[in-house]
């Protein structure tokens, strides 16, 4: 225990180097910029910046990625509040109350609330990171091949959660990803599979290139096919960015509730920040003593949504770092960064690499403070970026995609792979297939394959080994929950969204009437 406390303390000291602090500030700013530009998601931003971290030390690289992640989730609220367009899906619920506040000339107050709530949501979520992550990591020491097989199956059930409207299309996407994951040297016999005589494919498809293509490059194609139009003018706001003492006191319970919701949603694979923001918003409405303010620009509503989506960040890192199961697309990218640094998720991160891990955790805590500072100081500037023209955005992102994939191995073939996946991603999105499912399958496929084949090999082909331990049965139970939970979540989200929208539409109508009068 004392040793762990020592590691935690040392983590803060290590995180406080000038280079780390600089990177935190830069990462948060970059994240906010990416977040507040509608069309660029948090996953895309992290994927885009991932190659820049290769040359950094492991902890610095992870801190940058964490900073971009947190920044982007908060950044989405800026355009949600000012131009009623959530910068990322995670801020969809923020748009409801936030834009109402803007219409009433309280944009500054709304932005302050978003920033303040995001800060507390993110900060509190670090608590669970410190306490649950090492415990869960210890558990993986008990994992043998059979357990890893079930773990990957559990991870794959996330596909059901991320596939949105059509589960079938999600499954098609996942199957496609699994198929791609068989490329390369067979993990058990060493035979060459679908390599077409290219040594380049010996270690399989480069996941980082694949996800830069699927998340970032495909977005460029989507943006480019539309006619380039000017974005809505962001409202210039003049009111002061602050809350009174009473208002802060008012949103305090909301923040705590949203933190718990967001944190739990984050730990559960498959449910991301987009769901958390609606649940957080809805809960704040249910518990509010000022229900009449909802739909007319309630600071509680903004705080409820923003604290919840930022609380997801710390939570979602837990399964990623301990089990190697990324709960959503952002952490899938983050895991790519971890693996490239030569670090495997699991107990080693809390044993051999504990100083690095605790430095990252400390960095993640400090990032929240940077988010508060940069968010408050730079809001007015960031507001203008949300209307940056696609004519600038498209070439910039394209160059970053190419440079990023080349930087990994300095191999031109990586750019070809990235571009190919860009086209694949574009086509998939046109057909409503799910690119996140492909990435998940690409990461989890080899774990499951090796687990199943090694388990059967060691039992002499007897499948009973797959059901031979308590951990196996627990994981099987989780798989069932994993398959069923999206159905439950979808209902919950639909309910929350319906209630939220129902309230707003009335008020918007009322408001427009007032305006026209």
């Amino acid at each position, binding site marked *: 225990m004392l040793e762990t406390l020592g590691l935690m303390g040392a983590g803060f000291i290590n995180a406080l180097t000038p280079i780390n602090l600089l990177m935190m500030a830069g990462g948060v700013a970059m994240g906010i910029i990416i977040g507040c530009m509608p069309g660029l998601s948090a996953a895309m931003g992290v994927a885009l910046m991932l190659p820049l971290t*290769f040359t950094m030390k492991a902890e610095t690289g992870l801190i940058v990625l964490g900073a971009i992640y947190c920044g982007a989730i908060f950044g989405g609220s800026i355009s949600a509040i000012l131009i009623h367009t959530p910068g990322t899906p995670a801020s969809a619920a923020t748009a409801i109350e936030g834009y109402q506040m803007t219409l009433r000339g309280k944009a500054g107050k709304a932005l302050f609330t978003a920033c303040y709530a995001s800060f507390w949501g993110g900060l509190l979520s670090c608590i669970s990171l410190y306490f649950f992550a090492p415990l869960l990591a210890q558990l993986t020491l008990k994992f*043998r091949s059979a357990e890893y097989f079930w773990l990957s199956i559990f991870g794959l059930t996330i596909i059901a959660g991320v596939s949105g409207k059509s589960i079938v299309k999600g499954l098609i996407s996942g199957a496609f990803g699994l198929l791609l994951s068989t490329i390369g040297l067979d*993990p058990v016999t*060493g035979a060459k599979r679908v390599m077409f005589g290219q040594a380049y494919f010996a270690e399989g498809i480069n996941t980082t290139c694949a996800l830069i293509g699927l998340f970032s490059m495909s977005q460029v194609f989507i943006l480019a096919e539309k006619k380039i139009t000017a974005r809505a003018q962001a409202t210039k706001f003049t009111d002061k960015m602050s809350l009174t003492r009473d208002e802060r006191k008012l949103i305090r319970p909301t923040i705590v509730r949203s933190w718990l919701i967001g944190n739990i949603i984050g730990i559960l694979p498959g449910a991301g920040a987009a769901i958390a923001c609606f649940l957080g918003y809805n809960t704040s409405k249910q518990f509010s003593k000022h229900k009449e303010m909802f739909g007319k620009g309630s600071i509680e509503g903004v705080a409820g949504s923003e604290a919840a989506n930022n609380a997801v960040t710390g939570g979602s890192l837990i399964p990623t770092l301990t089990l190697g199961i990324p709960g959503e697309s952002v952490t899938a990218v983050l895991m790519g960064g971890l693996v490239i640094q030569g670090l495997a998720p699991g107990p080693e991160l809390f044993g051999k690499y504990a100083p690095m891990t605790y430095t990252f955790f400390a960095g993640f805590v400090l990032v929240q403070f940077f988010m508060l500072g940069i968010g408050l100081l730079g809001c007015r500037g960031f507001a203008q*970026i949300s209307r940056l023209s696609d004519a600038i955005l498209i070439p910039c992102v394209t160059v970053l995609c190419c440079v990023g994939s080349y930087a990994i191995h300095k191999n031109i073939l990586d750019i070809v792979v990235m571009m190919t996946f860009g086209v694949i991603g574009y086509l998939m999105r046109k057909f409503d297939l799910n690119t996140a499912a492909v990435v998940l399958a690409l990461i989890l496929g080899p774990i499951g394959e090796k687990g199943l084949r090694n388990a059967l090999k060691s039992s002499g082909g007897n499948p009973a080994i797959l059901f031979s331990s308590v951990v196996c049965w627990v994981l099987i139970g989780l798989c069932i929950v994993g398959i069923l939970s999206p159905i439950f979540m979808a209902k919950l989200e639909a309910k929350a969204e319906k209630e939220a929208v129902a309230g707003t539409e009335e008020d918007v109508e009322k408001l427009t009437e007032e305006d026209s009068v």
Partner: protein
Amino acid sequence: MKKIFALLLVLCMIFALSACGKSGGTTSSEAPAAESGEFKPDGPVTLIVAYKAGSGTDGPARILAQFAEKYIGQTVVVENVDGGSGSIGWSQLAAADPDGMTIGVMNLPNFNNSIVNELGTYTTASFKAICNHVTETSIVIVRADDDRFPDLDALVAYGKEHDGELKASTNGAKASNHIGAQAFANSAGFKYIDIPQGGTADQLLSLRNKESDFTVVKLGDIAGQESAYRVLGIFAAERDSRIPDVPTLAEKGLYDQWLGSSRAIVAPAGVSDAVIGFYEEALKKTMEDPDYLAAASSFDTNFQDHAATAALIEQQQQFAESLGAEFWGE
């Protein structure tokens, strides 16, 4: 405002580009004449490592590069060219200008396996040996608390009695430690089940969580966690001074050759003898440098000259080619 952010993004891209170009270096067009008797690099020297930054190969290579600068008289840039089980990096090294400005690390026997598996277009003749850098010897280990196997004899007896039942984790199908386990079991005359894992860390974890009964790793792999394992035997001609109580496999009448892995420093085949001589001398001095030795305490530095290293590469190649279906029991 727009312009400022466009500028910001451009700056960001320049930053990204500089990350790529970091180790590009400036290979002078007027490379030193290969035919002259003297060679001295006139710019940064590139050391190609065929595995990623932070890997087991990368660490020692970077320590060597750092201390070699004093004797080479130029900056030594480590360039990680990973992928294709090492073959991408070795292909790039084989194709590099033989002007003495690019050298690389060759992992034995992984390099030889990549030739046998037809992953690269090169052969041993595509490279010239400079010297050997690191040598690690293989050992047979079990869990420290496994009372079934107090010594090597007990493991062999158990293996023979329960033929085909013992399980051994490996660091990958037909990878170095799989070769070790197979060589041991073949010489002892029993069959076992191999459980291939992604790397040495997972391989050891598989032993510790009792999925495997024994395994073969390198001596350096268990450094710092010796208490968790019992070392039963070492694949060498003589006992190792660090573990004097552990018998060699040969003593027990089992596999009687040295087995392990080496990392040689090599250059593309076209370089002149002057280049080889220059680096051989410079790296010999580096590996004798007390500062280097202090920094390199975590691995086994083993300088061997050009001739011995060339012979080692050939010997390892013949060994890798000899591992046919019969060896693997297929």
